[in-house]
């Protein structure tokens, strides 16, 4: 398997605080990987660094989108990272609250469409076609995510679990090859978590999108992941299959006394 994301020696300093400490990580094509670690380990910071929201102090982030050439992406703006096929969700849900559910997903199509000011004003056949395609595609994604009954609801009126799924739908609309999920199951009940589990598997199997998720729900992590990376104090302390991680004494030590609830 060829890696689609390679992170080498990634380091992030916030003043005196080293949030990421020489981190190495690789994601293979078609893989569901998980990034776990105690609170404050630097997991979200890792996402922010590879998606261009923070500029890492040092290190390299290299992507190899399927069918495209390898490219170093550190220093790129977030929108350019997304354009290149890496989309994400946020730990503290960041939807566009007063836009409808459909429009939220339509925003995801922005970077895959072209029509500009003139197109908007004259609304020629090209623009109309593109607009219709955006609507169709967005609706299709909502159906896949089981959100089609909410199409015209405002995002902020959605139940919590649906909001989390809408974030994933929005990310999918950007046609990514890799989706980064930051605690997708946080605040979900067991039923919703189970559905999420199935959904993530479907995204990988049917859409061929690889996923990297940060998650505190160990059951979900163990059942989903092909590979797990464990972080503590900004360092990677272990990586391996769920079996290996479960029995790794270093990991157990890192978690001892720590809370690992969802």
């Amino acid at each position: 398997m060829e890696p689609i994301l390679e992170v080498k020696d990634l380091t992030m300093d916030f003043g005196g605080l080293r949030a990421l400490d020489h981190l190495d990580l690789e994601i293979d094509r078609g893989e569901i990987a998980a990034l776990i670690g105690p609170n404050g380990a630097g997991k979200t910071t890792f996402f922010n660094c590879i998606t261009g929201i923070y500029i890492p102090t040092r290190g390299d982030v290299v992507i190899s989108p399927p069918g495209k050439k390898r490219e170093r992406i550190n220093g790129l703006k977030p929108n350019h990272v997304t354009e290149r096929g890496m989309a994400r969700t946020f730990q503290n849900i960041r939807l566009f609250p007063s836009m409808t559910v459909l429009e939220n997903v339509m925003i995801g199509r922005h970077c895959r469409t072209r029509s500009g000011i003139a197109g908007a004003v004259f609304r020629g056949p090209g623009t109309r076609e593109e607009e219709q395609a955006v609507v169709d595609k967005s609706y299709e994604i909502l159906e896949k995510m089981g959100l089609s009954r909410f199409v015209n609801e405002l995002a902020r009126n959605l139940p919590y679990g649906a909001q989390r799924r809408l974030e994933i739908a929005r990310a999918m609309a950007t046609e990514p090859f890799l989706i980064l999920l930051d605690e997708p199951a946080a605040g979900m009940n067991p039923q919703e978590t189970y559905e999420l589990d199935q959904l993530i598997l479907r995204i990988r199997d049917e859409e061929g999108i690889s996923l990297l998720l940060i998650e505190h729900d160990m059951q979900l992590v163990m059942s989903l992941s092909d590979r797990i990376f464990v972080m503590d104090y900004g360092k990677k302390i272990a990586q391996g299959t769920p079996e290996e991680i479960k029995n790794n004494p270093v990991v157990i030590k890192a978690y001892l006394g720590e809370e690992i609830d969802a």
Partner: protein
Amino acid sequence: MKIQDIKESFFIAAWFILLTFPIMVIQVNPIENIIEWRWWNLILVGAGSFMLSFVWRYLMNRKAGQKRKESEDAEDIPLTQRLLRNPRFFVPALIVLGVFVFAFPFLFSAYQINIMTTALIYVVLGLGLNIVVGLAGLLDLGYVAFYAVGAYSYALLNHHFGLGFWTVLPVGAFMGAMFGVLLGFPVLRLRGDYLAIVTLGFGEIIRLILENWNAFSFGPSGIANIPRPGFFGVDFSLEASSRYLYFLMIAMALFTIFVVNRLQNSRIGRAWIALREDEIACQAMGIDKTKTKLTAFALGATWAGMVGVMFAAKTTFINPASFTFLESAIILSIVVLGGMGSIVGVIIGALVLILLPEYLRAFSEYRMLLFGAIMVIMMVFRPQGIISGVRRTYQFKGKGDKAVKTRETVKQPAPTTDHS
């Protein structure tokens, strides 16, 4: 309201005192060869920026509190919107309105027509600013600068080169857009109260340039004898001329409504709204923040530039006094009062705020006081404005079917902007 907020506002005030110190406090008196220290200005700048920042923070805090309440009692469509979108009410209303608009200049005196034309100018200004503030969520307090740019474009091009109204109209719009981008660049990184104060400064800079650069703009005495718009070389009587201006302004307003309506339901319009709702998520979804902000500034300013040309042609005389901060404040009030992001709201806002003071001449002394009071009351009781923005909705047939978009229906209000 936390101590923290007061501290930050205080810090901002100190910062602006420092920044404006050289121009606001120090004045060289070349006649007596001394330096005058205008300490009074320092106090004004300090107090002004402190108040602005403080009120801003207060309203933001309030809004945060309100959001929590709002999410609980959501789903009810306001009456105004149900009426607006109900065809049985809407179509006859539109016809009556159309007839009234057409008959107006033949029923009323030239004085009334002039007032209505002015109100229409503000409708267009409001719709333009609505792009920047209502849709993209960028609080611009210097919008009047673009209006001035348009007006002076016509006055100067006509004065020096004899260019006519119809030639300069697109030039004015273009100049507005250019200045929009020009202002957009330096403020790309600013948000909320910082953006507000800097744009306010920009507006004042333009006005001060016009006031002081005599060789260029003829200073405070302004430019007179600006020709009115031509109509195939026909000479109008004064009465007919105001009618003509009125219909021109109606056409311009309709054009603006048409374009703004199309823009707000387009790919770009959605990007503006996404930017207003959540800047980080917006970028993470692949939207170029820089480009989106600049198009908002440019397209907003275009209308001000265009209608500025119209203003110069209407009054036939302009000077910098027509482009004070007060104008920006009025235009912003129109947007806020009418409803950010709502075209109908902005139109109503403009008519109310411009026509009411004209007909309530007795109160004209208290105009500003009234404005202030209305704004505060609106912020507290109806922050989304008279009519709140409506999101377009789509109908889909059948589950799993190919999606079919059929018609627009009514949806819930969009809340006001979030700048911080």
